[in-house]
């Protein structure tokens, strides 16, 4: 194993140091570790190239001069090998390190530590004097999120079983376009290929594991897709609620307008999800009254009637 590692390091050094393309023969002749028959050297070299590529090292093939009957040659461009964030300031290195440190869950520690070592190797001191004291942490980043992010960076379709609103797990296929962490939950957003529509999926509603299906780069992300379109806009319907002063804190946090009065404050709240708003109104009992829309008002009244009936 150690011989092979040695050879891979030597190959990397030679391909990085060369100013021109090295032919296979030059490689076999000059780089230590290529031994045996011509055939076994070939095989070794093919495997080595694959291994370096797996490490994210880009080997450039070239040197085929049409005027001469040249062999193909190989090199690694230092600018593609090395960390390419340029002219970093100590404050920026601190920001990058803090960003990497936010990933503390087991599924991400190897990734985060490797990134931090690379950043530390730049040889710049960090400078946190311009930053508030911060301890960022992304909670709940599990193995499934890791798989989804891998799929997002390689544009690979994923599939998983997802608990629908009736509580039944169904298989879904998704081309991931983005991720969101909102109100303590992770969401995967993308094209549900069976429904042929943009959908979002809450990570903790996935049953079992996220798996890749099909090849990398199997889809293209539409340039028109913007995650911020999932934010409230003028199209989102509003509920008008009467809320008792000093209560309904959750509604106050999401309200777009609040008019205070003695008996009841008047709030306008965006309705992203009618079922969610309905149960939140019910949670608040007699402290919240729905004025409009009628659909919400009716849903709340009939739920209350049902509750009174079954508990009577």
């Amino acid at each position, binding site marked *: 194993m*150690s011989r092979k*590692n*040695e050879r891979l390091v*030597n190959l990397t*050094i030679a391909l*990085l*140091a060369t100013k021109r393309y090295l032919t296979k023969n030059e490689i076999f002749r*000059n780089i230590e570790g290529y031994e045996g028959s011509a055939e076994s050297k070939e095989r070794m070299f093919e495997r080595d190239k694959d291994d370096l590529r797996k*490490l*994210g090292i880009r080997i450039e093939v070239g040197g085929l001069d049409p005027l001469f009957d040249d062999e193909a040659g190989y090199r690694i461009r*230092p600018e*593609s*090998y*090395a960390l390419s*964030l340029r002219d970093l300031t100590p*404050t920026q290195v601190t*920001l990058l390190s803090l*960003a*990497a440190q*936010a990933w503390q869950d087991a599924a991400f520690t190897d*990734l985060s530590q*490797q*990134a931090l*070592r*690379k*950043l*530390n*190797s*730049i040889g710049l001191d960090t400078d946190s004097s311009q930053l508030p004291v911060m301890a*960022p*942490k*992304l*909670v*709940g980043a599990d193995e499934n999120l*890791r798989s989804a*992010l*891998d799929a*997002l*960076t390689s544009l690979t379709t994923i599939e998983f079983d997802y608990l629908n*609103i009736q*509580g039944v797990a169904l298989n879904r296929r998704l081309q991931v376009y*983005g*991720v969101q*962490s909102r*109100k303590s939950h992770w969401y995967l957003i993308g094209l549900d290929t069976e429904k042929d529509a943009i959908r979002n999926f809450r990570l903790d*509603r996935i049953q079992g594991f996220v798996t890749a299906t099909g090849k990398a780069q199997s889809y293209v992300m539409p340039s028109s897709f913007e995650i911020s379109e999932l934010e409230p806009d003028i199209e989102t319907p509003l509920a008008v609620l009467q809320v008792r002063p000093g*209560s309904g*804190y*959750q509604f106050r946090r999401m309200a777009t307008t609040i008019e205070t009065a003695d008996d009841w404050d008047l709030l306008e709240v965006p309705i992203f999800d009618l*079922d969610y708003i309905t*149960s939140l109104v*019910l*949670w*608040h009992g*007699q402290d919240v*009254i729905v004025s409009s829309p009628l659909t919400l008002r009716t849903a709340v*009244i009939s739920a*209350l009637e049902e509750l*009174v009936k079954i*508990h009577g």
Partner: protein
Amino acid sequence: MAKQDTGLARTARLLDLVPYLTTHQGIAISELAKTFNTTIKEITDDLNTLWMCGLPGYTPLELIDLEFESGFVSIRNAETLAAPRALDRAEVLSIYMGLDLLSAELSNTDTSLVNEITNLQDQLRTQLISAPQVQIEASLNSEFRALILRAIRRRGWIEITYHSVANDQVSKRQVAPYELSQSGTHEYLQGYCDNAKAIRNFRADRIVRVTEIDDQVWPNSPVTANESSIKFEVKVHSASRQVLELLPQISVSSKTASIEGFSASWISRAVLSLAGQIEATEPIQIRSAVHARAKAALENYH
């Protein structure tokens, strides 16, 4: 990126050791092992391997020159590998997302830092095949988390502004924090609450503000019992996803279930919010509390 097999992980470590050593001349082998999350033996093996590597020719002129017999490592003649390797795509994306979190938190206070972050994100984005859409919000603000962690370390007190969903109230509590821990998908702050004179668990994402306060006496052995819970029985009319998520003790096939609730107020609100999908059967006090609460709410509409 699939997990690297151990052989390749070793190659990656060898390559990453060179730039790290170049900027950390004289580092102790033990510290190096810790940084690379491995043993002293493994790191020593790595150094012995690197020592055999270099440019073609492989005379002392071309080989990497390593000195580590003293237990402290210095490196020379390793310029070709001295630059840190590029971040791989998974690393780029994770840092990109971490920056998004920082940017959201700094957006109200410091626009120049936000600009620096945007600049970094622009550079990172060019290293991905396709620009991902991310929107990251921390469940607990990073500054508040730093204050809590510092208080835990130095056994200091904090005052938290806490939103209790069960009581629909926001109030200030003086807390001696013990730990932040995760349970299910949520994170909790456990500590001694001076207002309740007992140990309490606070959902981290419902902590609205944290301030450090003058030290009080650290509660020595807070033997006070944990938050009491109330047992109640339910009949399940519909085991929907909403029911399963709010009351994890219920399973898809449950017809009835026995559940521990946090407080009488929480239980009534929870049953109400499920709109008749479950029915509180026992104890009778809970059942009639639900009935009374639903009836009072209904009267608002008459």
